[in-house]
C-alpha cells in the first residue's frame, strides 16, 4: 500500500481530518486530530498498526515536530510515519500514552529534550534531566554553559572548598554578573566547525 492510498483511506474514514504527504510520511495538519488518526490506524482491520516503534521530536527552527513510526506486529507491515507540527511557543500535542503504553517514556523523553507538551500524558515529567533544569537541550537555540568561563557562583563554591582563583578570572566573573549575563557557549552552528 503506498503512501497516497493510506492518505486517502484515512481521509475518507475520518471526515474532517486532513493529512499531507511529506517525504514518504503523513503530516497530520491539526495536532488535535492525531489521536483519531492513530486510533483509526490501530483499530481498522486494514492497518492494525498495533506497535508504536518510535516517538521523537525534532526542531525545525520555525516549528517543532513530533514524529511517530507505526508498525503492525499482527500483519508484519509498516512503517507508517506520522508527523505533527506545532508552534514553538505553544508546543501542545495530544499524548498517545493512553493508546500505546510504549509512548509513555518516549514522550517523556521528547518533553525532556524538546519541551513538547504532551497533553493528557499520565506522568509528564523530565525523564533524564533533573526537575528544575533550565531549557530544552535538543532545541536548536539552546545555549550550553561555557565550561571555560567561570561564573560568580562557581568561584564562590571553589573558594569555599579552598581552591585559589586567579584575579583575572575573578574579574571576568564579576563583570559578567554585573552585566547580568551568564557564561553561555555559542552553540556551533552548521558548518562553522569546518
Amino acid at each position: 500500500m503506498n503512501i497516497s492510498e493510506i492518505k486517502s483511506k484515512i481521509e475518507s474514514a475520518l471526515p474532517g481530518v486532513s493529512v499531507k504527504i511529506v517525504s514518504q510520511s503523513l503530516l497530520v495538519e491539526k495536532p488535535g486530530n492525531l489521536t483519531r488518526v492513530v486510533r483509526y490506524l490501530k483499530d481498522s482491520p486494514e492497518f492494525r498498526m498495533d506497535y508504536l516503534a518510535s516517538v521523537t521530536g525534532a526542531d525545525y527552527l520555525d516549528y517543532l515536530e513530533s514524529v511517530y513510526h507505526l508498525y503492525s506486529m499482527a500483519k508484519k507491515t509498516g512503517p507508517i510515519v506520522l508527523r505533527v507540527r506545532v508552534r514553538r511557543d505553544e508546543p501542545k500535542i495530544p499524548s498517545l500514552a493512553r493508546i500505546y503504553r510504549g509512548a509513555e517514556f518516549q514522550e517523556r523523553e521528547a518533553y525532556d529534550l524538546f519541551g513538547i507538551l504532551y497533553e493528557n500524558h499520565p506522568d509528564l515529567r523530565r525523564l533524564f534531566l533533573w526537575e528544575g533544569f533550565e531549557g530544552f537541550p535538543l532545541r536548536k537555540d539552546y545555549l550550553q554553559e561555557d565550561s571555560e568561563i567561570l561564573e560568580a557562583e562557581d568561584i564562590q563554591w571553589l573558594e569555599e572548598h579552598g581552591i585559589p582563583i586567579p584575579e583575572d578570572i575573578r574579574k571576568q566573573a564579576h563583570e559578567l554578573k554585573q552585566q547580568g549575563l551568564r557564561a553561555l557557549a555559542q552553540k556551533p552552528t552548521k558548518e562553522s566547525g569546518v
Partner: protein
Amino acid sequence: MDEKTVTVQDTNPMDTETLEVNFGPQHPSTHGVFRMNIVLDGETIVSVKPVMGYLHRNHEQIAENLTYAAVMPYTDRLDYFNSMANNFGYALAVEKLARIEVPERAQYIRVIMAELTRLVNHVSVIGFLLNDLGAFFTPVLYAFREREKILDIFEAISGSRMMCNYFRFGGVKRDVSDADLEQIRKIVQKFPAFLDEFEALLTKNEILCMRCQNVGVLPPDLAVNASITGPVLRASGVNYDIRKVDRYSIYERFSFRIPLGDKGDVYDRYYVRILEMRESVKILEQALKGIRPGEFIHPKSTSFLKLPRNFKPPVGEAYGRVESPKGELGYYLVSDGTPQPWRYHVRSPSLINLTVLEDLCVGHKVADAIIILGSIDIILGELDR
C-alpha cells in the same frame, strides 16, 4: 474527633507500614547507575518508579554536532555490550538515507559480527540474571569464559574488544582474514557444547525454576501495546523478529527459527535467550559456509573514509532498525544536505522495554523485582544516552 474514629475503623489492625526503599543508584543489582524507587509492604512490592538519567550525556546532541562518520564510535558507547549491533543499526540508517549499496562479503561479515554479538550479549545476560538470582558468580564466569573468546576475535578484527567501531557506510572497516574466520569457525563449533553444559547447570535447576517460573508474567497484548521488543517480547509468545520482518542485510538467505515463549515470565525470557543462541549458531554456521572473497566495502564509499566531511547525504530522512540483542534498535536520521545530521534519534530498546517494569513487579517480592529487571536486560549506556 470524627476523623480519628474514621481512620481507626478504616485501618486494619493487622496492616503494617509501607517502607520506601531506593534501590540504586549505588546498588549491586541495578546494572549500572539506575534507581528504582520501590515502596514495600513487608517484602511485597506496592509500587516501582524507575528513575534514570544518571548516565545521560545527550548522545543525540553530541551526534548532531558531528559528521556522520564521527558518530560511529559514539554508537559503540550506547549499548557497550554489543557495539557491533549498534554499529549495524547506524550503518543501515545512513545507508538508507544516502542510498549506499553494500557488497556481499561485507554483508556476510556484518551478519557474522551481529550474531557473534548476540551470543556475547545473551550469554552474559543469563550470567548476570543468575547473579541477580544469587548464584555466586559461577554462571557469569562461565559466560565470560566464552565471551572472552569472541571478544578476542573482535579485537583481532576490529582492534578493540568492546568499542569495536567496525562498520562503515557501505561495508566494514577492514577485511576479515581467513585465519580469523577459521578461529570463528572453531568457536561456533564448540559453542553448542558450552550451551549444553550451561543448560545442565541451570535449566532444570529447581531453585532457578522456583524463582523464575510465573514471576513477572508479561501478557502478549500488553507487550505489544507497550512497544516491547526483542527476547522479552518473544518470550511472551509474540512472533516478531526484525531479522525476519524487515529481511535487512542478507538475513533472508539463512534458515533460522524464532523461539517463542510459553507464558512470558522470567524463566521464558531466560530460555528464549538460550534458544536464540542456538539459532544464532545456525546462522553463523551458514554464514561461515557462504562467505566468499570479495570487497569488504563498496568502492564508492571508500573515498568518504578519508574525507568524512565530504559525505553529505541528500536531504531527507530515514529510520533504520535492526534486531539488536536487546530488541529493536532504531536510528532516526534527518539530513539537511550538510555533513552533519540535522536530527539524530536513537530508539533504544533498553529504555522502552522498561515501560512495563512496574506492571511486572507489583505484587511480587523484592527479590523478584531484581530478577525481573535482570531479565528485561537493560544497559544504562543505551538507556540514559
